[in-house]
Structure formats: C-alpha cells, structure tokens
C-alpha cells in the first residue's frame, strides 16, 4: 500500500520533469542547443501566476496568462539571443543560453526581490484527498498526472500528424533538406520553442501546486533535473523525454522512501554521470548512421 502511494507520488513528480524535459529535448533536436534558460522560463511562469492570483484574479486566467507568458518569453529569447547565432559554433550558443538563464534569474531578483513568494496553490487546485483503501491520493497528484497524459497525447498527435509537426521532424533530421522542401526553417524553430514552452508553462503551474514557493532561482534545479531526464531518455527524442522524466521522478521518490531524502539531488546527478559514461545516447537516443 505504501508502495502504491509512493508510485503515485513518483508519477506526479515524474510527470512534471517529463513536461520540462520535453522542452529541452525538442529544442536540442531541432537546433542542437541545450537551452539552459528553459528552467527559468518555468520561474517566469510561476511569477506571472503568483502575481495574478495574489491580485485576486481567477485561477483559470492565471494559468492561461502564465502559459502565454512562457511562450512569448521563450520566443523572444529565441529571436533576440539564439537566432543571430544560427551559424555560429555550438559552444557560443550554449554559453549564450547560460547567459540568458543568469539574466532571467537576476532580472527576477530585481523585479521581485530574492525572497520567495508563496504560491496560493489551493486556489488553483483545492486541497482534496481521496482515500482508496488505506492510501491517500491528493487531487493535485491526480490533476498533474491527467494533465500530463493529455499534454503528451496532444504533443504526439501534433508531431506525428500535423503538417507543422512533420516539418519539425524534417528540420530536426536534416535542416538543409528541409529548406529544399520549401519548409521555412526559422518559423519551424520558433514553433518548436513555442511548443516546448507551452509544456513548460503547464509544468510550471503543476510544479507550483506541489511546491508552493516561487523564487528567482526556482527554475535552475528543476531545469537541471529535467535536463538529466532528457539525457537519460535520449536527448532529441520526444518519447525518451517522457520516459526519462518519469524515471527521474521515480528515482527521487524511491530515494526519499528509503529514508535518504537529502540525497535525492545527488542521486539524480549521479544518474547523469552514469548515463554519460555507460550509454550517452540514453534510452531512446540514436547515433545516426547514413546509408550512402
């Protein structure tokens, strides 16, 4: 019974990691950039939601505006910081991403001070617990899992079935060949950023509902863990990011369950090191081989 409630706990946490990891993986898949500012997009979403909620507005409005805010911010970052470096060496792009991340964190500190604000999570999702037998399931956990499943189904349909989704796959596989098909690569990249940050916006709200504190640095550890999840699943792979996120969530919950909760972060990064040593392509990543 304890196992089952831990399982749901892990599923909840893992869902959030998976949502964030997808943004990392999709952007990496399309422009080979580890977008380290992705975690800070989540922080921005958290602040937007907190500001609207503490102003006494409707939680639905807060959620929608937080997601829109995440999308606009990440598209803006892409246009201003990454697009001018499209043909630059990848290391320049990586350093820029780290710079953008630091910029966003310091900007938030300037605007909102370094003190954490509490997120009125019970306004968004009421604190209801369901008892099934001897286990307790919170409504938050249930909503998180369901919303994540719906998001992933939508994403899969988008990528597999729509014209834009197919263009995304084409660009990520071969940018020049995609151009020759008449695909506008720049707008496809923008769309990828927008999709990834929509998921980040959703993840942001769900994360704040579980850990109801919003601070300028809240995105950095979450972002790093989601990055580990993306690497574990195979960076660039969408199903990989989903699996990797869940795996990291379960690993954390498992480590806490055996009484080593202060070790969770260490275990997550140990997983990163082990993956990089043993199987750098992760679960579903591929090393491309072309037939001549």
């Amino acid at each position, binding site marked *: 019974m304890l196992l089952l409630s831990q399982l749901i706990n892990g599923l909840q946490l893992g869902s959030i990691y998976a949502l964030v990891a997808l943004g990392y993986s999709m952007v990496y898949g399309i422009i080979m950039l580890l977008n380290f500012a992705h975690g800070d997009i989540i922080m921005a979403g958290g602040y937007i939601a907190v500001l609207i909620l503490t102003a006494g507005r409707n939680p639905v409005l807060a959620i929608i505006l937080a997601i829109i805010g995440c999308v606009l911010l990440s598209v803006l970052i892409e246009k201003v910081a990454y697009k001018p470096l499209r043909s630059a060496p990848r290391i320049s792009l990586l350093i820029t991403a780290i710079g953008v991340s630091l910029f966003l964190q310091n900007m938030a500190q300037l605007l909102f001070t370094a003190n954490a604000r509490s997120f009125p999570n019970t306004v968004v999702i009421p604190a209801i617990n369901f008892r099934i037998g001897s286990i307790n399931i919170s409504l938050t956990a249930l909503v998180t899992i369901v919303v994540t499943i719906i998001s992933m189904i939508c994403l899969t349909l988008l990528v597999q079935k729509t*014209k834009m989704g*197919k*263009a995304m*796959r*084409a660009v990520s*596989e*071969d940018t*020049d*060949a*995609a*151009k*020759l*098909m*008449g*695909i*506008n*690569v720049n707008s496809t990249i923008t769309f990828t950023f927008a999709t990834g940050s929509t998921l980040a916006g959703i993840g942001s709200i769900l994360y704040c509902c579980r850990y109801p504190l919003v601070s300028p640095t809240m995105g950095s550890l979450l972002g790093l863990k989601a990055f580990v999840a993306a690497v574990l699943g195979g960076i660039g792979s969408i199903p990989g990011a989903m699996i990797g996120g869940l795996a990291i969530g379960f690993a954390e919950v498992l480590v806490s369950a055996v009484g080593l909760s202060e070790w969770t972060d260490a275990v997550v990064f140990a997983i990163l090191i082990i993956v990089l040593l043993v199987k750098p392509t992760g679960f579903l990543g591929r090393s*491309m081989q*072309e*037939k*001549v």
Partner: protein
Amino acid sequence: MLKINDINVYYGPIHAIKGVSFEVHPGEIVALIGANGAGKSTILKTISGLLRPKTGSITFMDTDITKMEAHKIVQQGLAHCPEGRRIFLRMTVMENLEMGAYTQKGVDEDIIESVFARFPRLKERRRQVAGTLSGGEQQMLAMGRALMSRPKMIMLDEPSMGLAPLLVEEIFDIIKTLNESGTTVLLVEQNAGMALEIAHRAYVLETGRITLSGTGKELATSDEIKKAYLGG
C-alpha cells in the same frame, strides 16, 4: 529558363566558384560534369539558395532569385534533389513525399499517384521507414519527393551515386522520360558517359571554372573529354 550570370562563391577564404555563367532553356536536359571537387554541387546549392554567391546573379523564369531564401525558391517551381539523397530516414516513404509537397496546399492524390506511377516500388513501400530502403529505392524516393512540388525544373545532384549499373540505367531512363513529359532538368554527374548520353547540352567544370561546353554528342566525342572523363 535558368540563367546564371558570372557567380562567385566562397567557402570562407576558399574561392570555390570563379565567375561561372551558363543557361538552361525550357525543355532541356543540361549536364554539368567534372571531377570530384570541381564545384558542381556548390553551384546547385547556390542556385537553390543554400549558399549565397558573393557576386553575380541567378534568374529563374525572369525572377531574380539570387538573394531569395531557399524555401521560397522551391515555391517558384525549382526543385533540388541533393547529393547523397538526403531523404528523411526516420520518416516513412509517404511522409517524405508529403514533405516534398510542403509548398502545396494539402497533398494532392493525383500528384502522389503520378509519382507512384513513375516509381512503382515506392508505392509498395509507402508505409516503410525510409531508412530501411535500399540505395536505389532511396534515390527514387529522393526524386519522387522533389517531384511532389510540381517543379517546372528539377536539379539532380549525382543521381547515380553508389548504385549498381543496372539501377543507374533505370534512373537515367526515368530522367529521360521525366524530361519528355515536360520537366526541364539540370543534371550534375561524375558519370560523364551516362550524363552526356541523355543531355542536350553540357558544361564541363574544372576547379570552379567552366572550361568546355557543347551539345551532349559533341562533348561525348571530344578527345579531351574522352581522355579526362570517359577513360580513354
């Protein structure tokens, strides 16, 4: 139809294409032949907008496309089937063809049928992932994909590369019938013998310069060409 006027293309400090000019008329098959590294593929990439010439101009159907973005050039009716095929290996055959029709509004059944009629083997394998196709089938897919945009002119870069002789014959036959049905062809080949056989006119490229030109027949019988490209 296509007019290249004195283009110069650089890869960083390397002057790859040195003042090349040539023309392709409607309905022709024009071949660009030359050794490895002569700049044949560079010229095609420059025409399709993947590379930019430093100077010179490129006109397609009276439109200046010199500075046009690659994805807009396709919309003008100029398709480029690149060297090494560059099909999307992780996508299915059908998805590859859909990508070829990206500039069209929706995927037209007629055009798919016409591509399948030209390449029946693609129809059999339409649900297969492109990476599992044989080399010849991949070449057919690359050509079929380029045809999906209903091009007025198609540029083919080394369509015979890595294929068995029998398949090379088949591919060249397809190019010929494609041309007979009204599509203008600009063909880049190392296999000069085959290319000159089907080309109306040809240009010989050596280290970034055009050194010879003439009809396919003239060049095929010229001593210089025989010595340099046809093995005797």
